[in-house]
């Protein structure tokens, strides 16, 4: 397993940066602050207000990168930064004018300082969340509360071993070669769509554990009574939402002034478009020079990159900018503010063409990982990236956010839009089982990797590992007879 990096690290400063900070503190940064110019694209540059083209003090050159000394404000080109340092003692630190990055002239390397980044970020308008349904409570507070609740639920659902209702089921079979709880589902007439999803839900660790441990009170269940009070799923605390509900963040940025408008929307699954880019990481790794239809591959990470990419809204979709007080071209970007316990990813394989009034299915293969790290798609990562990855605390930066997921179910579709078949692959105790309605077979991991995925179910890694342990002692409801016959398959099982 790889060592995970925290969301951002403060790199150790070089000796020269250290010395500079000791001697000058933040004064150099503050003096530069008024010269910093923020662009609506999240970039920052330095603009010396005394006009004219900046030129190198030593050679009068104006081409290439120019660096502004933090102490004396003299400008040097890359060839002469060392010269400046040698002629003026202690003038080691400079700022790249074009990118507002710190540069150590002695180390000849870009260096980083959280204090400097903070100054840079002060020039950017980070935007204000617009969704204010809950009035007084700030969205930050609300989200922290919800997160605590979510984590608490996860722990409670996972802690079943301590529950008195746990009954270890005596295994009557001669060879206990497959996990308990695995059953086929009869196809009741084109119900494979339902069977597939049911299989995934039945084996979602927190969901399954909840129902098996008497967590669900059938009589009192508000869903059954048709009581539709809880429309806003952000408030709903039913098991389905506690397990599957996450929060998506949508940022719309004005391309003229850079001000951003943010909204949050709950979701129970994420639908992504297929990433049909021409270049793939393998192309670059294998040094292929030409994009080739055969060598490019779509990946789930590519789809998620696409989902969280900055998307230019067309000119017919101009939005009203509060700051500019005009209709402006905008850029939209999605990110994930809060991840659910179980992440359900849906691939949009059905393409509708309004022009031709036809729909078709996209059969393209999609590579997906078994272990998924969702860090790059979190709002904190996306927003930070938008502003050049400055060392700066972004909303949602809690270091204890869980982002490691393990896959446990894959729903595949074969066939066409008009006629097809859904099959689910389940991962139990690191073995894969193909659930084709009532027909359950064990399959190699490779079959699953090579399959045409349609929906993928990932669960937080910690819950997945616990679930593996739990499978040997499955909780049972004391009310029900362990040998309740289910149509068809169990009679042979319990002979």
């Amino acid at each position, binding site marked *: 397993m790889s060592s995970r990096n925290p969301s951002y690290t403060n790199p150790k400063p070089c000796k020269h940066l250290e010395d500079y900070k000791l001697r000058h503190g933040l004064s150099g940064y503050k003096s530069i602050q008024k010269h910093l110019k923020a662009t609506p694209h999240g970039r920052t540059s330095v603009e010396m207000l005394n006009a004219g083209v900046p030129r190198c003090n030593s050679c009068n050159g104006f081409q290439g990168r120019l660096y502004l000394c933090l102490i004396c404000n003299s400008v040097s080109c890359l060839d002469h930064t060392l010269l400046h340092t040698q002629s003026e003692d202690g003038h080691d630190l400079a700022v790249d004018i074009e990118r507002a990055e710190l540069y150590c002239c002695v180390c000849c390397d870009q260096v980083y300082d959280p204090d400097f980044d903070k100054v840079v970020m002060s020039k950017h308008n980070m935007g204000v969340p617009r969704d204010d349904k809950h009035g007084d409570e700030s969205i930050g507070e609300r989200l922290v509360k919800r997160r605590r609740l979510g984590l608490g639920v996860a722990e409670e659902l996972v802690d079943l071993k301590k529950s008195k209702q746990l009954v270890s089921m005596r295994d009557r079979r001669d060879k206990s070669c497959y996990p308990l709880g695995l059953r086929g589902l009869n196809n009741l007439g084109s119900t494979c769509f339902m069977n597939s999803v049911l299989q995934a839900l039945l084996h979602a660790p927190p969901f399954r554990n909840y129902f098996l441990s008497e967590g669900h009170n059938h009589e009192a269940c508000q869903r059954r009574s048709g009581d539709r009070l809880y429309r806003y799923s952000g408030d709903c605390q039913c098991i389905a939402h506690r397990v599957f509900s996450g929060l998506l963040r949508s940022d719309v940025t004005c391309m003229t002034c850079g001000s951003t408008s943010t909204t949050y929307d709950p979701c129970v699954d994420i639908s992504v478009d297929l990433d049909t880019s021409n270049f793939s990481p393998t192309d670059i790794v294998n040094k292929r020079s030409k994009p080739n239809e055969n060598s490019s591959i779509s990946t789930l990470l590519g789809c998620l990159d696409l989902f969280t990419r900055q998307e230019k809204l067309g000119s017919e979709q101009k939005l009203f900018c509060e700051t500019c007080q005009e209709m402006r071209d905008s850029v939209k970007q999605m990110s994930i503010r809060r991840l659910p316990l179980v992440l359900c990813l849906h691939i949009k394989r059905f393409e509708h063409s309004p022009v031709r009034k036809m729909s078709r299915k996209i059969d393209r293969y999609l590579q997906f990982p078994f272990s998924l790290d969702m860090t790059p798609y979190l709002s904190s990562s996306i927003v930070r990236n938008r502003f050049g990855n400055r060392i700066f605390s972004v909303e949602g930066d809690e270091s204890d956010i869980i982002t490691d997921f393990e896959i446990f179910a894959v729903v595949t579709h074969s066939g066409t839009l008009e006629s097809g078949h859904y099959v689910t692959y389940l991962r139990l105790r690191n073995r894969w089982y193909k659930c084709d309605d009532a027909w359950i077979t064990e399959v190699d991991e490779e079959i699953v990797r*090579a399959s045409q995925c349609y929906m993928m179910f990932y669960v937080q890694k910690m819950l997945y590992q616990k679930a593996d342990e739990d499978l040997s002692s499955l909780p049972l409801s004391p009310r029900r007879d362990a040998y309740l016959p289910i149509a068809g398959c169990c009679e042979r099982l319990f002979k």
Partner: protein
Amino acid sequence: MSLPNEDNMASQLSSHFFGDLLDSIIVDVASECHRIARLGLDRNLEDEEEELRLSAQARVRVADPSNSGEANSKYVVDIFGQSHPSVASEVFECMNCGRSIVAGRFAPHLEKCMGKGRKARPKVTRSSTAAQNRYSRGSPVSTYSPYSNSTSSNRLSNGTSGVAGEEYSNGTFQEP
């Protein structure tokens, strides 16, 4: 017609500017990647590449006909000892109308039976009215429904056989 020298200079200048622009872009990207790497923000490329490799390998192996694939013919029985194809041939009683239905045809039957189709038969037994009361009132079930025979005869469609005689189940509430 411009002199060849002028042409030379023009193309030299444009090459020069292009070179400058290209340098600037390259340094931009290098600076960005440098920051990402130093701050530890880069994705774990090794893990990603490993997953890609495993998938590519899997696809090759699965596509190879010489490998014993997961073609259905490989398995004569599934893990429960059933033989394929398993047609849902069990017969049971529909909880709505009480008819005996073959499992594999239950979904289309239910569609018609529960009121979607033309031949809808909303079967009103004591248990199903009790269920309806529960849903509409949100209160606990009472076994004795005030809406027994009178409404049921109104709602019955033109007397299809098998329905008339089964208005009263024997009191136990069936869970759908």
